[in-house]
């Protein structure tokens, strides 16, 4: 359990976010709005990933499946449903999928869950690819969606929601149970933690916001193409951001996302392979030598400063 929630921090976070949003909307260039949208999206995704994988230690290697599914549902219902309904549907279906596949998998211990997540996103990807090919659609363009400012606001909303979901769960009874699962699943269950149910809840929650974000991302890119929407490197990026920032509290993924989205702005356009290589190596280095991430290091440093 983290220390109990601090109202000052909550207010500070909200005020800062509001100030940044107003600043960006009124003063920033189109380029910067695009950057801020991307940053907000990655915060939302990596915070969500930690809800299951950071808290319980059950590593999902295929979280992109929820993101891609959200995008696909939103593009399919575009023009038929209002935007908010399409996004809500995306989130609900992502959660539904997580619960559906998590149910059989969480009953057995061992690496089955990991392998399942690894394969599931590819399975869904190829189904969508084939369905689209049958329908002779090779990428779908979207016209008349929300404008960049509106997409930016949606993404910021998701980032704030994901941050606070992550912040409050870590301070709740649910969060305590999930930590118990991570530390020792058998001891946790013997102490009264309904482990299968809690894992399922955590998996469902961690799929919710990526589903919605996938739908919102559609409006930013303007088109849907399954190979890109389900690209495994999206899963990989959210994992790396979370691990580098630190998965022990909600600040970690936030820090990791800021660091890596900035790095990506510097490297991605010219040298995507170098960016991905750096990400891969960073992940290895942090898992082995800095397992608490930047946030954990900062917290320790802060403690020794005050002591």
């Amino acid at each position, binding site marked *: 359990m983290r220390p109990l929630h601090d109202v000052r921090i909550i207010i500070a976070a909200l005020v800062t976010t509001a100030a940044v949003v107003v600043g960006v909307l009124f003063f920033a260039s189109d380029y910067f709005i695009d950057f801020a949208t991307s940053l907000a999206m990655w915060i939302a995704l990596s915070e969500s990933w930690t809800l299951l994988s950071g808290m319980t230690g059950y590593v999902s290697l295929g979280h992109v499946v929820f993101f891609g599914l959200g995008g696909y549902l939103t593009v399919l219902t575009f023009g038929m449903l209002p935007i908010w309904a399409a996004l809500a549907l995306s989130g609900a279906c992502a959660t539904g999928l997580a619960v559906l596949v998590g149910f059989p998998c969480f009953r057995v211990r061992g690496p089955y869950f990991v392998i399942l997540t690894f394969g599931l996103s590819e399975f869904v990807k190829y189904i969508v690819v084939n369905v689209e090919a049958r329908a002779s659609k090779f990428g779908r363009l979207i016209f008349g969606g929300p404008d960049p400012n509106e997409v930016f606001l949606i993404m910021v909303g998701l980032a704030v929601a994901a941050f606070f979901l992550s912040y409050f769960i870590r301070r*709740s009874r649910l969060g305590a149970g999930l930590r*118990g699962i991570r*530390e*020792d699943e058998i001891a946790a269950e013997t*102490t*009264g933690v309904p482990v299968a149910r809690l894992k399922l809840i955590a998996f469902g929650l961690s799929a919710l916001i990526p589903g919605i974000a996938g739908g919102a991302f559609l409006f930013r890119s303007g088109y849907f193409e399954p190979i890109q929407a389900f690209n495994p490197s999206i899963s990989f990026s959210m994992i790396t951001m979370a691990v580098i920032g630190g998965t022990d509290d909600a600040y970690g993924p936030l820090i990791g996302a800021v660091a890596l989205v900035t790095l990506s702005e510097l490297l991605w356009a010219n040298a995507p392979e170098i960016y991905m290589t750096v990400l891969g190596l960073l992940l290895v280095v942090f898992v082995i030598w800095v397992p608490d991430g930047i946030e954990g290091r900062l917290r320790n440093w802060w403690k020794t400063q005050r002591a």
Partner: protein
Amino acid sequence: MILEVDHVTKRFNGVAAVRGVSFSVPEGAIFGLMGANGAGKTTIFSMIAGNEQPTSGDIRFQGSSIQGLRPWRISRLGIARTFQIVRPFPALTCRENVALAVLYGAGQDSSPARAMRVAGEILNEVKLATVADEEARRLTLVSRKRLEIARALGARPKLLLLDEVLAGLTPMEVEAAVELLRHIHRRYQLTIVMVEHVLRALMRLCTEIAVLDHGEKIAEGSPQAVSADPVVVKAYFGAPQ
């Protein structure tokens, strides 16, 4: 009778670890399960706590069968256990370890803040208050055994299963632990079932003892009766050469 173990058998891949064992524990007792290594004591605990399922037989708690229930359900009915090889949550502090049990055990507290307070009180009772905010993995073995008991208490049990909490302690530490067990038995109005092969401690603490040998119960009764039983003496000290 708070706990009834009724003709319970457990086979692992065909080999019987426990064979047709029955015993009943009256409310408020300190009941000892004695036996050499491999006699089936821990297996019986695992079956009571739901970590293992009996191959046949029935286990009743407060009159109703708990057979087939998941461990967390059994915990919520009011049975808590410790593990012979202690397994505290290593990266959590002692306080968090106990608070988790307060939140999820039979007490079902809904507030983390209150659970942390209650956890502090329990750590106080088992004399771990000074290390309450240390991570569990930093503790000594003695302290970890105490933490294991504290966590079990945090679940607010009516029945406490203690698996060799005295093993591996020095005579002085055993002395302190015996005192502690007496104290929590009174303080929390518990029924305790303890598995042990430290004979002397069992004799002092228990009101009744059952003796297991190779998965079967060979004797049951008061400590005096059991220690005088020739079958027990033979099983424990071997036949005269």
